[in-house]
């Protein structure tokens, strides 16, 4: 039992680390509102429960890697659209190169 639980924790930790990278990456192409981000993350099985995204968005917002503005929507109240900032772009570039390094390292180590 404990073994399984540890494994779950490890999986969660792995996901957590790269989730920020994925969110920044998704938002680097265009501004989106949270539900669009969720759809993309879900499609790639990056998140299990949706609630995970919101505190994360907020953390990136506080770190000034993201910003948002309100936009009118055709259906219902205005929506909050998130976009990447210049600082976010720099961070993303760094994360990308780290990811490449890691990818190579992991592939080598697990061969």
């Amino acid at each position, binding site marked *: 039992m404990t073994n399984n639980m540890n494994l779950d924790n490890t999986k*969660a930790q792995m996901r957590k680390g790269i989730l920020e990278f994925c969110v920044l990456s998704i938002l680097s192409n265009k501004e989106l509102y949270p539900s669009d981000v969720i759809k993309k993350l879900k499609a790639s099985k990056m998140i299990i*429960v949706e609630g995970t995204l919101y*505190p994360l968005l907020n953390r990136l917002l506080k770190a000034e890697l993201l910003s948002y503005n309100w936009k009118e929507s055709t259906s219902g109240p205005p929506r909050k659209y998130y976009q990447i900032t210049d600082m976010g772009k720099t961070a993303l570039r760094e994360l990308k190169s780290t990811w490449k390094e890691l990818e190579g390292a992991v592939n080598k180590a697990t061969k």
Partner: protein
Amino acid sequence: MKKVVNINLAGKQFTIDEDAYQALDKYLNTINKHFSSSSGFEDIMYDIEERIAELFEEEMQGSTIITVDKVTAMQKTMGTPQDFGAAADMNTSENRRIEKRFFRNTDNKVIAGVASGLGAYLGIENILLVRAVFLMIALSGIGILPYLILWIFIPEAKTASDKLSMRGEDININSIANAVEDGVSEIKETFSELHKNFKQNML
């Protein structure tokens, strides 16, 4: 027959029956509590409510009233605060302080560690001061009885978590690791001292 309630979720109106309302209210409250200490609290709550509203809209096809099973389904999609808490407060865990407890600090003792434990409990850094007070009490005629009583009734801080609650530090893996590290480096110091003494004696 059931009563229904009208609610406003992130600017959208929903009709929800009473049981479902209770369930939703409870759910939002737990999320609320979970995030209330982080600084972007309103932003997070708004985004979450907006998403919940959207999930309800998707679910509503055909029906006009939100029922308990729709709330349950929504909760499954959104997850519990524990689920997303795991990803939430990685960095924002401001040094929460836990309730302090009075322990005898036998790591730093002259007699039984009562004074240094009390110092830690009261947040007095200069333990000599506490010791002086005990000494004064002892000499003033009241005697050593207060000290003895404390010695008997106050437990010794034995485990790492005892030591943390003695200092009022939050007990989590990191702080325990720190406490253990402190202990290890102390042992190392003692060893290197012993080693030095040994060398000196040999020469």
